[in-house]
């Protein structure tokens, strides 16, 4: 290619390169902002400079110089503070809607000489919202620090963390410097539950019988012994065996009944569903989750059937989590989908039908239809977080 052609191409590319360079500058500027105090300080600095020139008072020049040096020191320290930082998050994989979840934030300062001061770490979701923040007054050189924040997810579903924004206005609050650390993570928010009483079981004409079966449960008879695992109730520790073996040993009890509960949640919605229908859908899902919780609490086996799929029968907190995981990700289906009944609930179990009013007519006759309207107030409160708000207000009053 002749050199003249290359030169022309370079010339043509020059504006684009200049624009790209300008764009990179603008992009970088996003990381340094001047807060209102800084702007006021700039204006005052300029006024002092003008006054110094106007009056030729050298002491004003001196004050003006000191103010300029504040800027220089501010920029230097802000840059130094942010250099060599590493930030990451430690979050649980599961959370429960409406219940506080604690997320840990770690900051490591890898600088050899300088510590970092007054760091604000904002945790941001993929939607751009700031979910929580932690404050690190001081991270010493070659040291690290950990802080945590609590947040509440009011709704079920998958929440995606995107990045951590570390910001500081150290030392004088004239410049805010921000760094972004990509740290993608996911947290699955399980649906919460409302408090249900035995009425729902009585409606289903269930019998809380005392028939013991050869299965683990919450009966009175000893089923076996095993090593203690974190999360096990401490009241079940077999102290004598523990003392003899030197290892924490847990008692396991037989199940006293083997009643099964099948929760059939009809998650079908008509095409023309409006916001209220969606709200009702969420209430139904919350109710289903609450029934599952109740069944788990009284030691029943339970299964979950929806128009989307089925979680086979099981028992215990682990199985409850499995069912709620499914509920957390459940989306409404069209009315053309087969009803949960088609997924084949266990015949010897008690069926609980939860669904919208439109699909209630399709409930089988043997199923106990749990009406959303009966628990409307509780469900409404749980979804709108009013109860937690009251609790938090109470906590706030106590705390401050």
């Amino acid at each position, binding site marked *: 290619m002749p050199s003249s052609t290359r030169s022309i191409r370079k010339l043509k590319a020059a504006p684009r390169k200049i624009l790209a360079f300008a764009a990179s500058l603008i992009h970088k500027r996003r990381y340094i902002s001047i807060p209102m105090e800084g702007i006021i300080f700039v204006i005052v600095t300029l006024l002092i400079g003008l*006054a110094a020139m*106007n*009056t*030729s*008072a*050298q*002491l*004003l*020049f*001196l004050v003006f*110089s*000191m103010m*300029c*040096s504040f800027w220089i*020191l501010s920029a230097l320290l802000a840059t130094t503070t942010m250099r060599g930082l590493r930030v990451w998050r*430690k*979050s*649980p994989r599961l959370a429960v809607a409406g219940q*506080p*979840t*604690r*997320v*840990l934030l770690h900051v490591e300062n890898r600088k050899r000489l300088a510590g970092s001061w007054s760091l*604000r770490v904002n945790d941001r979701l993929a939607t751009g919202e*700031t979910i929580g*923040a932690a*404050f690190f*007054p*001081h991270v*010493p050189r*070659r*040291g690290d*620090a*950990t802080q*945590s924040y*609590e*947040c*509440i*997810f*009011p*709704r*079920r579903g998958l929440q995606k963390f995107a990045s951590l924004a570390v910001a500081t206005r*150290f*030392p*004088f*609050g004239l410049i805010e410097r921000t760094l972004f650390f990509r740290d993608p993570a996911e947290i699955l928010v399980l649906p919460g539950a409302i408090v249900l009483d035995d009425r729902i079981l009585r409606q289903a004409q269930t019998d809380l019988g005392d028939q013991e079966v050869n299965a683990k449960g919450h009966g009175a008879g000893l089923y076996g012994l095993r090593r*203690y695992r*974190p999360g*096990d109730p*401490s*009241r079940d520790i077999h*102290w004598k065996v523990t003392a003899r073996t030197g290892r*924490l040993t847990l008692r396991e009890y037989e199940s006293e009944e083997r009643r099964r509960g099948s929760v059939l949640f009809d998650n079908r919605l008509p095409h023309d569903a409006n916001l209220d229908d969606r709200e009702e859908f969420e209430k139904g899902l919350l109710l289903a989750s609450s029934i599952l919780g109740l069944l788990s609490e009284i030691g029943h086996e339970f299964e979950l059937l929806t128009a989307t799929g089925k979680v086979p029968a099981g028992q215990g907190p682990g199985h409850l989590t499995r069912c709620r995981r499914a509920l957390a990700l459940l989306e409404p289906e069209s009315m053309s989908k087969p009803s949960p009944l088609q997924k084949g609930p266990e015949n010897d179990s008690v069926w609980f039908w939860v669904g919208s009013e439109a699909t209630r007519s399709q409930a089988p006759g043997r199923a106990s239809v749990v009406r959303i309207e009966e628990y409307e107030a509780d469900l409404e409160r749980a979804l*709108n*977080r009013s109860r937690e708000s009251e609790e*938090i207000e109470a*906590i*706030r009053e106590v*705390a*401050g």
Partner: protein
Amino acid sequence: MAFQRSFFFLTYLTAIWSFVSLASTGELHLWAIVAFSLILLAAIGRRRFRFELPGFIWLLITIAVFCGALWGWFRLGERMYSVTYFLMYLEANKLLTAKSNRDYIQIYGLTFFQMLAASVSTTSVLFAPLLGGYLLLIIATMIAFTIKRDAERTFQTAKPGKKALRRGSPWRMMASDRRALEEVGYLPFLTRRMVSRLALATGVVVLLGGGLFLVIPRAARQDFLPGLGRGHQGPRKSGFADHVAFGGVGRIQNDPTIVMRVIPTPESTLNRPTFLRIRGTALDEFTGRQWQKSAAMVREIKPMRAQGAQILPPSLLVEYGEPFRADINLDPERSNYIFTVNQPARVILDKTRTVELDPEGLSLKLETSQPRYQPITYQVEGRIPRAEARSVFEADPLASTREDEDVKPIAQASLDLLRDVASAVDRGITALSTRSERNDRQYLQTPETPDMENIREMAMAWTAGIDSPRARAEEVERRFRTEFDYTLEADFADRPNHLTHFLRVAREGHCEYFATSMVLMLRSLGIPARIVNGYLTDEWNRTGQGYYVVRQEHAHSWVEVRFPDSPVWVTFDPTPASGLGSNRIHRTWFHRWSAVADAMKLVWYNLVVDYDVNDQRKGILASIRAVARGLEALQSGTESARLWWESGGDDSAGRGGRWVLVGAGGALTIGALGYFVVLLRRRRERAGEDPEQQVRTSREDVRPYLDLMRDLGEVFPRPQGQTPRDFARIVVDRSGGALEEFVPLTDRYYTIRYNGDRWDPELDRRIAALRQRLRDMERTPASQPALDAD
């Protein structure tokens, strides 16, 4: 000190400091100082006594004060007072009502404006330490405030709206955040290490600010609000003007205030005179009560550029005595006179100002009707008496007694010698007159007062039998010096024939009486004469390079006489020697310290207050010269070392080469040692031996606690993400309080892990005790209920 306390401590201290700085300028009324001090006390006490005024009362007060400030600005013309007092009121208001962060920012801003007001109200060197202290305090305060506000911003509760809640937007709880915020309040802040860091930051600001101050381009417009930059009281009055009321110079001779400092250049310092005569202006017309410039003299005055003002053209300079150059640092005065030496040749003013040159009176004056509120420094070139005249005075017998006595009037025994000295010093100093023929009449003018007849009679009597004008003048001067006494207590200036009273009755007075009487006597004898007002100083401050100190008490009047056979003005000084120079000699430590303080003030003036573009240019040139000299020295040193080495150690071959090599070797050794220390330190840091490093947070530092927490976690399940503090509370609850010790232990863990505290061996013992208690609980059946409390 804990963070929260430190914050309030620093805030109030900053407010107090800035107020003290403003009050130290002496420009505040006493009632304002008292009132603001009481408000500061009330503001500090407010936190304890919860004193509050309703908001509408504050509003009413604010409106009233604002109206008062407007009244002061427009009606009284007291702009500076109006602005300063209004700002002080705002600060008082904020100090008494501060709640939010915005209030605190406003307080800091107002303290800054107080410092600003102080900076334009004073040129005192005292402002330097006050500014330094303010910098330290404001840096500490701003850092504390930034941390406080960042912490609060972090812990603000997010409150999403209903729509956001429907979307499932997360939100944060308040209780744990509030706890975290309170923990920030208890962090140690004003520790020794922190204070040293703050001092370092202040040093950096001072260095950076100083550097910027030296290089920021100087410009002066003075177009906007020229009156705003002046002090409230203005500069002091001076006795020097075109019209000097009789007795004016005598009055200011009781004032020890420093007027100017005369810093001879190094070559002039070697031959400096013991007495230095500073020329103000010559006045030729006497009305009987006032000396003034005649119309003929005023007509000769012409404006000219101050930069290098040539007072006398080189052709008219009298080649007498020795050349003398000095920088004069002139304090603010109402007078605009530029003081020079008695035979001035040239004045170099750094400012691009216009001056008025009086070629007849050999004086310079700034061409402005405004009083001068800033000190100025300029250079004067002229001539001083010959060396032999000074050598007489340097044999001063008083020199031996001065060291022994704190305050000593000049001894009568030395008067004769001083008379001779004063005569010898001045007699030769002359200045050419450019208008000798035309203006004889103006220098023979006498007032039509009853005094003149007596004066003429006395002049005739004193000079009877003397024909030569010079001899007559010398006789008159001798008579005054020997037959009259000097006193500042002359209180007959109001008498109608005060000069007659002086000559015939009192026979004592101050320099104005002597000079005026001599001028009138000579004029009555037909000899042209005039009076010159200025200073005569003998006070030498030995600090540093050394300089003459000129005080108000050195104000002096003397006489210039022109003889028919000479075109020059000859200086005569009829004042008795006891009235010359300082009449008190101070040797106390306080006065020595005063001399040092005054030298510091001079440095402050030169480097800060009067630092201008010319000084910038000189500084840059000096830096370039210094670098060039350094490079030259390096080159020659290298060459010498090479020659010395090649000649096998012959000192004559490479002069100083041996020492260059020794120095280079020493520098290399020190560098290598330093590098070795750095390496050693790094290695120790890596090995964890460095005690500095041991306080850094590392999981290994708190390993015993972490092990304990792991063991407790086996008994009391600890969910993922639970903080140690939450876990500790659960452990205590579920153990029924049996493991209560775990909570303070956890607090210590936090301070060690995150606040840089050291691990205490005592903690090992506490952890061992706790572990033992846990084991007991696991083994003892009685402990089962406690663990089953869940």
